[in-house]
């Protein structure tokens, strides 16, 4: 039994070493962070951030936030992907551009409930999807060995239906602090 445990540990160590070595060659980056997403002047929702950037400077990012107001729950997810590159002339700053898929979810009552007249109140919920563009910049504030941290500032731009003809944009601006490591 003890031998089996040692072998399993050695096998796990070998796999981790192999993955780490491969990761160094490719320098993928995984980051977790906190963000604030604006909802008009003087109002921002706290959000969780996760971002993966490949060695080809392709990134995938998720922002998730929400709130509960009594029986009403809201959850908004912003899934973005695109390309990142240093700003020519100011290489410390990186520009992020791509597309964002937004899912705004609203539900009233988390499940079925019985009304006062003994009838059943079903859960009411809906998803609203929108596809838009992402434009943003990031600046590193800490880089050491495989670990790094950065500040981000980005806007997710959505055409407001047919009003897009009049250049109307729906905007979700976000500010983030993320820390990560090279895989």
């Amino acid at each position, binding site marked *: 039994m003890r031998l089996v445990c040692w072998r399993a540990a050695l096998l796990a160590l070998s796999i981790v070493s192999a993955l780490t070595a491969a990761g160094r060659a490719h320098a993928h980056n995984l980051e977790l962070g906190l963000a604030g997403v604006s909802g008009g002047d*003087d109002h921002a929702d706290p959000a969780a951030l996760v971002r993966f950037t490949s060695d080809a400077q392709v990134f995938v990012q998720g922002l998730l936030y929400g709130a509960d107001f009594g029986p009403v729950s809201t959850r908004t997810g912003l899934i973005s992907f695109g390309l990142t590159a240093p700003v020519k002339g100011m290489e410390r700053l990186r520009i992020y551009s791509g597309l964002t898929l937004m899912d705004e979810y609203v539900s009233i009552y988390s499940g079925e409930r019985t009304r006062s007249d003994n009838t059943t109140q079903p859960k009411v919920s809906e998803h609203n999807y929108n596809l838009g563009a992402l434009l943003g910049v990031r600046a590193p504030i800490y880089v050491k060995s495989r670990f790094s941290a950065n500040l981000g500032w980005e*806007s997710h731009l959505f055409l407001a239906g047919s009003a897009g003809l009049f250049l109307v944009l729906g905007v979700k601006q976000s500010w983030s602090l993320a820390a990560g490591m090279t895989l």
Partner: protein
Amino acid sequence: MSHRMSLRSLGHWRCVMLAVVLSLAHSSPAVASAVSLLLGPASAGNGGSNPVGIPPSFGDIAIKYVSSGYYETTVSLVPGLLFGKRFQDRQLYVSTGGGLLMSISGAGVGVYTSFGLVSGTGSGVHFNAEYTQSLGINGKGWTAPGAGRIGAIWEF
């Protein structure tokens, strides 16, 4: 509506004159300076932007002057009066700087970043599209006005 009226009361011509004065102040004998006129509705912190007016109202307009050293001055009602540095790579550019910000909750100070596209470089008139995001503080808290605009840039 009331904020629009109050913004209008600033005086259109005063702002235009200010743009001209600032542009002249930045002038240099070097070659590739540029002026751009951009139209588009702004997000002033009131939950979304209004459609661009026909004809465009003063709040829909931004005038930019870019010096030969790529220093830019933006004159607009929203996001405001901005000074910054443009970093251009062929037909794409990023600008960053700071200035006076204007939103529905009043005037403040802050920083901005612009992302832009021009259809060409060199002397002449080119298509120009730009989105500006800003972040700052005013007497009522923080503010983040922005604007997506399109128009023309004249390089000379």
